[in-house]
């Protein structure tokens, strides 16, 4: 940094915490007043995002009568979990949760294992044509799911897989592959080649290097990609609606979508409770992992 630049930086009023010691000319009250629109904007933002969630939570405790007769912003008159029990039973949330878990989690596992192996082969190993194969994987990011659903539906029907959870598992594993291969390849690029060359000198075979060096070194990357894809799969409606739309196959999202159909008239309390279960379960995961989730989801966007 040259002399003029540093004097410039010294003479400007502090805009970063570091330079707070530079004397301010403005009196404090005026600064506060100037910041007022900012705080109003932030408050409005918090209400816009937060109030629907608070309203949802409060609604999950209200009785049908309260929904129909009391104003919509009234507080619930009792705090019983009756609505949650009703919602859990009538919507079959238990079995839906099971269906979601047994398709999404194995799909995540195989997607990560195969995808990382492919990325390793494409990025660390040296062979002719690897660039072209990487491009083939990349092309998959662009393809809308509608383009593959109809042939897959026929294929699953002809092979007799329809009526089981296999179509869902297979489709998730495959549709997650392009982004996984691409992101893992990017992470491998950041590892110095010397690591693998040294391992080769020490006599480690390729497979040994993959399982004992590459996978442990990719821990963060695997976690990030797994998290991103977890949300895609868990919240997916299109694929589950296509392949798992009958009673006992329903995933959480399909069960939720069919919630109103289980009653003659809308039972508001249980409906709000069912939505609450879905939202607040994810909220807990989100609060625990929030930094990694923000980083992961945005990484998936910029590069994908």
């Amino acid at each position: 940094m040259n002399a003029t630049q540093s004097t410039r930086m010294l003479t400007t009023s502090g805009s970063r915490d570091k330079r707070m010691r530079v004397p301010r000319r403005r009196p404090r009250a005026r600064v506060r007043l100037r910041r007022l629109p900012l705080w109003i904007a932030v408050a409005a933002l918090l209400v816009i995002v937060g109030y629907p969630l608070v309203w949802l939570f409060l609604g999950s405790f209200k009785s049908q009568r309260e929904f129909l007769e009391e104003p919509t912003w009234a507080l619930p008159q009792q705090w019983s979990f009756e609505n949650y029990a009703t919602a859990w039973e009538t919507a079959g949330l238990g079995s839906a949760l099971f269906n979601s878990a047994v398709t999404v989690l194995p799909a995540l596992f195989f997607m990560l294992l195969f995808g990382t192996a492919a990325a390793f082969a494409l990025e660390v190993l040296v062979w002719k044509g690897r660039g072209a194969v990487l491009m083939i994987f990349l092309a998959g990011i662009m393809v809308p799911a509608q383009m593959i659903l109809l042939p897959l539906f026929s294929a699953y029907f002809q092979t007799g897989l329809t009526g089981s959870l296999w179509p869902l598992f297979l489709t998730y594993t495959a549709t997650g592959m392009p982004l996984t291969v691409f992101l893992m390849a990017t992470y491998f690029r950041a590892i110095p080649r010397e690591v693998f060359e040294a391992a080769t000198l020490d006599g480690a075979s390729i497979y040994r290097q993959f399982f004992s060096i590459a996978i442990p070194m990719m821990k963060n990357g695997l976690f990030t990609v797994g998290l991103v894809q977890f949300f895609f799969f868990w919240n997916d409606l299109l694929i589950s609606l296509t392949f798992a739309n009958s009673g006992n196959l329903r995933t959480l999202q399909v069960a939720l979508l069919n919630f109103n159909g289980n009653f003659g008239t809308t039972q508001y309390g249980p409906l709000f409770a069912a939505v609450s279960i879905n939202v607040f379960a994810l909220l807990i995961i989100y609060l625990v992992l929030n930094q990694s989730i923000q980083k992961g989801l945005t990484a998936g966007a910029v590069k994908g």
Partner: protein
Amino acid sequence: MKNILGDRRAAFVLLAPALLVYSVIMLVPVVVSLGYTVFEGNAISGFEFVGVDNFVRLIGDAEAHQALLFTLKYALVVTVGQVVVGYLLSLLYVFGLKRASSVVRTLVFFPIVMPTVAVALLFQQLFSIAPTEGVVNSMLAGFGGVPVDWFGDGGSAFVVIAIMDIWRSMGFYGVLLYAGLVDIPEDVLESARIDGASGWKLVRHIVVPLSLPVLISSIIFSINGTLKVFDSVMALTSGGPGTSTSPLTISVFDHAFTYGEYGYGSTLAMLLTIICLIVTVFIFRGSQRDLTKDGPR
């Protein structure tokens, strides 16, 4: 040493599972789907060759035109909404809240990880009119307005869909663009301030050009998502009333699984794929030209 890292057999073994799953479940179906466009029928009743009939039908199909128009309208409005609101949020984070922004960022980001179906059910209730007024209609009544039957016609239902999807994703784009804004070197901003640029001028002439690359990738990402919108519309209105809020994706779904017309469904899916490709290439080319015009950085 090259020998081991250049082991072709090992490369094949590691690559094969991923490539096999990907080819069988994504690449082959794309080709088959293209093939379907010259057939009509479905998995259960069998297929019949119809030549270019599906394309002829597409040209004269008013419903498909409406779906195409809805898709484009939705993509335009929601992409602009998502990116503009997200950009305003990121400006707020970087220049307004500075280091105190993390709590606000965390809260505003959350809706994007919520299940779309849950968000849609929530918005149905927020905007409901009967048998009980939701929050929005209560507020309208409170301010002396007339409650609106939001889901009664395509126009107002579209407004709810757009509001919902912008509400869901604004925090996501806020964080995405925030990452780009944080990278702008502080001394560039400082010297611009000394040269007398402040507020809107600073944003317009310094911040926007410097964050253009991340802005462009946000737009590409956003428009690719909005052109393929399915979950939120399906869960909120299922394309109704009638087919007035039905995008191409729901038309594909309806034709294939309600009417059993795989051929015509695939033709519509192909139209969607082509639009996605054209739009992405178009934005990408446009942005490249802009970047070279502004000089390398």
